C-alpha cells in the first residue's frame, strides 16, 4: 500500500537524520501509524530544558489527510489544549490546508517552532494567548514552571 511505503521512507529519513531537537520512534514496531516523538524545548523559550513527548498519529488515508499531533507531556502554551489530550491543530495540520506533498519532518519542525514562537492569533487557549500578549513575564514564568514540573526528568 502506498501510504505505508511513504511512511516507512519518511520514518527512515527522520531516524537517520533527525532535525534539531527532535527524535522519533514507533510506539509499536508493528504499527507504522503511531509515532512517539521526543522534542527538546527550544533554547531561549520558557520550554528550554524540557523533554516533551508528543504523539503523532497518521490516518490510513495519509498523505491525503494530515497527521494529528498531540502533546503527551503537559505544556502551558496558547496553541495546545490545556487538557489530557494536549491537542494542537493549526496551520499546515488543518485538513483544508494540508498538502499531500507536505512532510512529517516539516510537521515536527513546525511544532517545535511553535514552542519558540506561539501563535496567539490562532490560539486554542484564549486565556493563555491573552497572557502571552499582555503579560509576557507572567506567561514565561508559568510556562517555565510547567516545564519544570512536567517535562524535566527528576
Amino acid at each position, binding site marked *: *500500500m*502506498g*501510504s505505508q*511505503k*511513504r511512511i516507512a*521512507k*519518511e520514518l527512515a*529519513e527522520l531516524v537517520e537524520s533527525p532535525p534539531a531537537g527532535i527524535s522519533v520512534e514507533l510506539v509499536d514496531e508493528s504499527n507504522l501509524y503511531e509515532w512517539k516523538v521526543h522534542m527538546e524545548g527550544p533554547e531561549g523559550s520558557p520550554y528550554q530544558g524540557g523533554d516533551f513527548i508528543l504523539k503523532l498519529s497518521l490516518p490510513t*488515508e495519509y*498523505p*491525503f489527510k494530515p497527521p494529528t499531533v498531540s502533546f503527551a507531556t503537559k505544556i502551558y502554551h496558547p496553541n495546545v489544549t490545556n487538557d489530557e489530550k494536549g491537542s494542537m491543530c493549526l496551520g499546515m495540520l488543518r485538513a*483544508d*490546508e*494540508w*498538502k*499531500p*506533498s*507536505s*512532510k512529517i519532518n516539516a510537521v515536527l519542525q513546525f511544532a517545535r517552532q511553535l514552542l519558540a514562537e506561539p501563535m496567539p492569533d490562532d490560539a486554542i487557549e484564549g486565556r493563555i494567548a491573552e497572557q502571552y500578549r499582555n503579560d509576557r513575564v507572567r506567561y514565561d514564568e508559568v510556562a517555565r514552571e510547567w516545564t519544570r514540573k512536567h517535562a524535566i526528568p527528576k
Partner: protein
Amino acid sequence: MLILPQFPDASELLNHPRLYAMSLSKPWSHFGPHHPFPEKQNYYRDPFPPSLLPPLGFSISAAFAPDPTMSNANMNALPLDEMERFQKLSNEFEPDVQGPLVSTKQSSHSIAMDYANADPTLATKTSALAITHPMTRIMKGDGNCGWRAVTFGYFETLYALRDPMRVQREMSRIESLNTLLVQVGLDPTLYEIFVDATEDAFAQTLAAIQNGEQDETYLVNAFNDEFNSNSIITHFRLLTSTWMKLNPQQYQAFLSGPLDEYCAKHIDPLKTEIDQVGLQALLDGIIQGSGFGVEILYLDRSEGDAVTPHQLVSGSTPNGPTIRLLYRPGHYDLLYRAEQTVNMAPMVNLQYGMTSNYTPWDQGALSFDVNSSLMSIPNLMADPGSGFGMPMSPIPSVPQTPASPFRISTPQDMYQSPIQNHVPVPVSSPPPVMPSAPPPMTTLPNRSDGPQIRLNPLVMKPNLSHSLPVTTPFKK
C-alpha cells in the same frame, strides 16, 4: 490542411453571461484565503433545485439559504461577523455526497431529467444535450471532480485509441515531466507514490489494450479506489503547480495574490476544486502535449437552445480524440458525443511526428503574448519555428514549416495582425510526417521582451482592449 480556430471570439465570449461572470468571479478574492466553494455543492443533484442557479457570478446565497432573492450585493452588506460565520460554515461544509468517484457511462437523459421541471432554458438545453451528447459519466462532487474528470478523461481517451505505442509515448512524456518536480524543490520521497499510481494507470491501460479488453471497466475500477484515485490526481496537481511555477508569466496576471500562494492554497491541497486558471494550467502543462483536444460545455441559463461547446485545447488533428467536459456551476462531469469517432489509425503518422517534436516544459517556450484565439491553439506552444515573437526573422522559420503538422496554423491564419509586415508562411504542401526532429526548444533564443501575459479567454477581463496589450508583442 488548415486548422481553423474554433474558439469564439472575444465579443462572443463577453456576451456569454456565464463565461463573463466566471471571468469576474475569483471566489478567493471575495471570501478570504479559503476556497469557500469546493465543488462540494452539488447544485444539480439534491440539495437545491437548479432553478436556484445564480444568474451571474458566484453567489454565496445558494450555499447557505436557498433563497434566490438573496444577491451578492446583499451578502456584501452583511456585518463582518456574519460574514465570518458564513465563512466558517462554508469552510466546514461537508456535504454528504453519494455515488462512486467515477460513474459508469450512462445516458445523459438523466441530466435532462434533473432539469425537466427547472428553468425552461435549462430544460431545453439539457434535452438537446441528451441528443448531441447521449452519454455522460458523473464525477463525485467531493472537491476533486474537475481534476478527476480531466484525468480520467485523459486515460480513457488514450485507451480508446487502442494504440500501445501511443500509450508508451504518453507514459514517457509524463515521466519526463516528473523531472521538473525536483526543479521546484520537491523531494522524490514525497511524490513517488503518486507517480507510481499514474504509472500503474498507464500500465493497466497498456495491458487492457494488449489483452483486448472489451471496455474501460479497468479504468473505472482504478479510479474508484480512493487512495489510487487521489494519488493520480495529486500527481497531476503537483505537475500543474510545477508547470505554473515554471511559467509564472502565463498565469500571474490572472491571480489576485502571489502564484506560489495560489498553488499552495488552490492547487496542491486535495479537495480544492479546480478553477479556471488551474484548469488552463492543467491543460497547458500536462494534457496538451498528448495531442488530445479538450472541449467544455457550459450548462447555464444563457440565451439559446443548446449547450455550446468551447474548445479549450485544439487537438493535434481535427476531429481527433477529444476530452469533453460538462460544466455546471461548481461541478464537472464527462460527456460523450453521438458519433464516437475515436479510431485514429489513419492519423498515426501524424501523431508520431507530433510527439517526437515534444520537449519537456521549457520556460522560454511561451514567452510571447497571444490573443484569445491563438491561445487556444496548442500548436503554437510547441512550435519552435514560429515567426511569432520574432517577427523580424520569419525566414529562418520557413524551412521548419513543413516539418511539423502544427506549423500549418500560422499566426497569420488565426489572427488579423494589425501590422501587415509578416511574411506569410507557405502552407501549400506540408508533408504530414516529420523527417527529423527539430532542434529542442531549449536552444531557442529568448525571443520576447514584451509583456508576458497570456490571455485566457475564460478569465479575461471584460474591457479587453484596455487591459490586455494584444498588439504590443508584434510591434518591435
